[in-house]
């Protein structure tokens, strides 16, 4: 799956050279806990154009979810956006008031969560939960909103939508609940959708369906999509660009073809290498040695240093962002030679 995707990706319609839908600049989100300061996101920059799909990949604790939550403004104390800018269609979201951000949420920027059973309120009906998303931002009467809800459910491929509307979340399967969540996200035709591990809690077969649904909708509406996941296989199927995160920083960024086909950062290579399908049968699975460092006590210098096979003397300093080729970004002193992955 990875090999095929690496050669066959094409930019989406509308991914032109207009102003980017979202431009994140040096975002830092820190958590001030009793035990110390957790630098969950520590200097993250990327941009995403209209209709583009950006995949953010990383392990647990890499900061990828926090990045998504920072953009939509749902960071609660003891966390806080410490510095940086989040430019959404020109406006800096970090400078907006809570009320201004609330108006954007659900309308221009939407979010899909990992576990649809927990994300949908168990004691409210499906139609209630869809309709309120519409009526919070647009002045429509209940009948119109109900019709919109019905259409939205059809658009995500749910059969017999009228019956589903009257149901409660626990009456639907996991895959259907996630489709409902996607329907809610798309219903106001937002400019940007942040999907935080939406398929992780689902069966593999359902995963493919959900991916397909999301892709189709984005293509048709021109919505930009940030797909956050730890699963490289998933992201390679859907993303135009990929950003790899480690310990709160983006260590490598580029088009999907580039990052997967010829990774430059040792961590990226490690991630690709540890995908089971990538390993020769009968041989031991490749694993990146060591563990993610504690975000409370990051070692100085490159955070990946202790696990890296290629670490050198320079790595005791934190590597700056470099741009080895056009559109490609990297944080590494000893990048891998660009060799095609076998």
């Amino acid at each position, binding site marked *: 799956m990875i090999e095929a995707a690496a050669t066959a990706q094409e930019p989406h319609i509308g991914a032109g050279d207009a102003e980017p839908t979202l431009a994140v600049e040096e975002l830092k989100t820190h958590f001030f806990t009793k035990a110390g300061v*957790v630098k969950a996101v520590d200097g993250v920059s990327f941009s995403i154009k209209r209709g583009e799909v950006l995949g953010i990949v990383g392990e647990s604790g890499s900061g990828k979810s*926090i990045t998504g939550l920072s953009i939509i403004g749902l960071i609660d104390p003891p966390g806080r956006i410490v510095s940086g800018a989040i430019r959404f269609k020109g406006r800096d979201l970090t400078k907006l008031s809570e009320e201004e951000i609330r108006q954007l949420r659900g309308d221009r920027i939407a979010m899909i969560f990992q576990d649809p059973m927990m994300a949908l309120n168990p004691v409210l009906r499906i139609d209630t939960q869809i309709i309120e998303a519409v009526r919070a931002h647009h002045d429509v009467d209940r009948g119109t909103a109900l019709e919109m809800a019905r259409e939205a459910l059809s658009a995500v491929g749910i059969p017999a939508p009228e019956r589903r509307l009257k149901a409660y979340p626990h009456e639907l399967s996991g895959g259907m609940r996630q489709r409902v969540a996607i329907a809610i996200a798309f219903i106001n035709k937002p400019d940007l959708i942040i999907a935080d591990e939406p398929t992780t809690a689902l069966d593999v077969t359902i995963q493919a369906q959900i991916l397909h649904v999301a892709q189709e909708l984005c293509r048709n509406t021109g919505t930009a999509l940030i797909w956050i996941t730890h699963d490289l296989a998933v992201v390679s199927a859907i993303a135009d660009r990929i950003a790899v995160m480690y310990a709160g920083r983006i260590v490598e960024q580029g088009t999907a073809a580039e990052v997967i086909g010829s990774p430059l950062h040792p961590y990226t290579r490690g991630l690709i290498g540890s995908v089971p399908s990538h390993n020769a049968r009968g041989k031991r699975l490749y694993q990146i040695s060591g563990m993610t460092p*504690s*975000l409370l006590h990051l070692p100085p210098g490159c955070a990946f240093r202790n696990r890296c096979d290629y670490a050198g003397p320079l790595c005791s300093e934190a590597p700056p962002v470099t741009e080895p080729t056009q559109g490609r970004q990297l944080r590494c002193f000893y990048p891998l030679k660009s060799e095609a992955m076998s």
Partner: protein
Amino acid sequence: MSVTEAPAAIAEKNDASAVETPLRRFVSAYCESKLAVGAALFLLVLILLAAFAPLIAPQNPYDLAQVDVLDSRLPPGEVGFSGMTYWLGSDGAGRDLLSAMLYGLRISLSVGFLSGLIAMAIGAAIGLIAAYVGGRVDSLIMRIVDLQLSFPAILVALMLIAVLGKGVDKIIIALVTVQWAYYARTVRGSALVESQKEYVEAARCLGLSHARILFRHILPNCLPPLIVVATVQAAHAIALEATLSFLGVGLPQTEPSLGLLISNGFEYVLSGKYWISTFPGIALLVTIVTINLVGDQLRDVLNPRLAR
């Protein structure tokens, strides 16, 4: 688990901390709340006051030779005919309120703690047996426990007293009956969890007797929730005894607890002699609040689900 807590939690787990014994950890966790520390110290003071009441009190209010009926109903701070200063006033029979309160505190605390201890012993034993033996015995015992707990304590106590009559021993029986079920349920719950653990299996393999396993191995591990329940129940027992005494169905006049003092003072409230009821009430209140504060903090500290 919510997403924004994940990085902090992971960070803390990966963080190596200094070696601490459980006791030290418990004490330092408990001391995180200055209020709770203050409460614990104050409780100690109260217990000491009660224990040494005969030595501290200005007068023994139940020794008729020391009481002057001419000094009755004096407001706080007045000096009476006998030359004694009644710091908190005197009651209808001329007894010094401060002394009466100290003695009353003594009785309230001792009845409360005694009944609590007995209830704990009985309840814990029953709970342990229920958990250890399991099966039908367990179901039966828990049914009885549930039945009893579904009725309000005061009702059970009143019924028992109505049937048994009055007297110190009857009150203690009533208080024990009201409390044992809480202990039984708590201990049974944690004993059930413990008996699934491996050290019990290991003890069985060693051929230790059931009694030994129960009391030396399982019981100590059930102590944390038991301690929490004990403090809560202690406060309840003291309050219940006070209520019963107030209603006139509690301790007899010869063993006046704080509840009885308040009851005695009730008739004077409407004529403005507030102190006879107010001060013993404050003493009772302070005692209960203190115990509850300590119990609250204990519960927060010993609760594994509120892992910090």
